């Protein structure tokens, strides 16, 4: 067996897919945790962040203080604290060989899709309206994308989603031909390109 074939076989193995999901969900949880602590500290003493510090790397705390950071009246990061442990549980269970019923995986896909949309809305707002870059928020954008990609990979492969039957075969063969990996790579590179073109000078100058 060639190396390429071995890599592809690994990529399609449950261990790899759910391992990636587990790892990404842990990153999301970590970032949510850091952002939640920041939010609590900020709420307790708004004065702490009310200056531009010499060590300010990316911006003067403007992301945490924008209305977008508390869309539902509490810090967005709390949502991550609630949702990511569920993803971690699912990933661990699947690694252990548990097969969830179809409706469960469908529901997971639906809810996680909402989460991804929310993460990208925040990314868009931070980039083009708040005008500040927050490394932990970016980490969430990336890890959320990876969890979404792995979940979609599994659900398309196992035919869990209620899709029209004429879509199923092409999608399944696209997954088998690794096109999903190409799409996700392009997607992440576009994110990097956006960040570098918008914030390159302050990151590297």
């Amino acid at each position, binding site marked *: 067996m060639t190396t*390429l*074939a071995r890599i*592809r*076989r690994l990529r*399609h193995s449950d261990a790899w897919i759910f391992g990636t999901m587990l790892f990404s969900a842990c990153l999301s949880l970590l970032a949510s945790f850091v952002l939640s602590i920041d939010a609590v500290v900020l709420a307790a003493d708004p004065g702490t962040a*009310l*200056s*531009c*510090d*010499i060590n*300010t790397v990316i*911006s*003067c705390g*403007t992301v945490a203080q924008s209305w977008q950071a508390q869309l539902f009246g509490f810090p967005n990061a709390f949502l991550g604290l609630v949702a990511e442990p569920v993803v971690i549980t699912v990933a661990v269970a699947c690694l252990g*060989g548990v*097969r969830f019923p179809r409706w469960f995986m469908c529901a997971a896909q639906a809810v996680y899709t909402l989460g991804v949309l929310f993460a990208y809305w925040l990314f868009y707002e931070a980039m083009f309206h708040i*005008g*500040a*870059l927050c490394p932990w928020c970016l980490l969430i954008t990336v890890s959320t994308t990876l969890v979404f990609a792995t979940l979609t990979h599994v659900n398309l*492969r*196992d035919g869990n989603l209620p899709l029209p039957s004429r879509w199923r075969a092409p999608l*399944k*063969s696209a997954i*088998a*031909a*690794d*096109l999903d990996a*190409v*799409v996700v*790579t*392009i997607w992440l*590179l*576009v994110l*990097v*390109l956006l960040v*570098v*073109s*918008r*914030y*390159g*000078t*302050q*990151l*590297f*100058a």
Partner: protein
Amino acid sequence: MGRQARKGRPVIAGPSAGLNPVMIGGLVVIVALVAAIGFMVVRASGGGSTAAGPLVAPNGATASGALPIGRESAPVTVEIYLDYMCPYCGRFEKANSAEIDKLVADGTARVELHPLNFLDRFSQGTRYSTRAANAVATVADKAPGQVLALNRVLFDNQPEENSTGLTDTRIAELALQAGVPQAVVDVLDDGIHSTWVTQSNDAAFASGVTGTPTIKINGQKYEGDLYTAGPLTAAVTSAAGEQ
């Protein structure tokens, strides 16, 4: 073991999978993206470098790198460390500028402005903090009566963090609005005091200032509320009473 069988390994290991036209197109896009990212990184890291001009201190500047405004005999000295890109300095200015103007006018306080440039990295390579601080230093040198007025219009029209900042043309317009004579406005974009600004910036941080806005009253850091009118005025007046 049923689930192993269900996954259809033969499809994945099939010999035809691998290089189809879609896959090749995808790989081309990936290579193009990586090249574009590399290009942006190189451009970003090279773009910020500008040759440092000679060190020219504005007339009357203090040894610590400040622009003094007001009577030398005033009992209280209020030092203001600011960066024209810092949103909190904008808030400080909005709350306190009228009060500060009054304290300077009635001879209670002498203001020492420290315009810093450490937030240059938030103006997409245009070095807005330096350009704005240099404009203020140039006005302090050539038309000292207009410094506070220019300081105020710059904050009234403060650009957003991570924008390109105000253009030199816009700074010139605002300076004219603030009553700076045309002859001085014409040299604002010459960067005469840019090197001095950088030196003052470094001196401020070396002296223990950690961010902006920082206010010192007679050399003591002011720890009170910076963002509502009143408390700072009260602190200055009480310091004047102690003299």
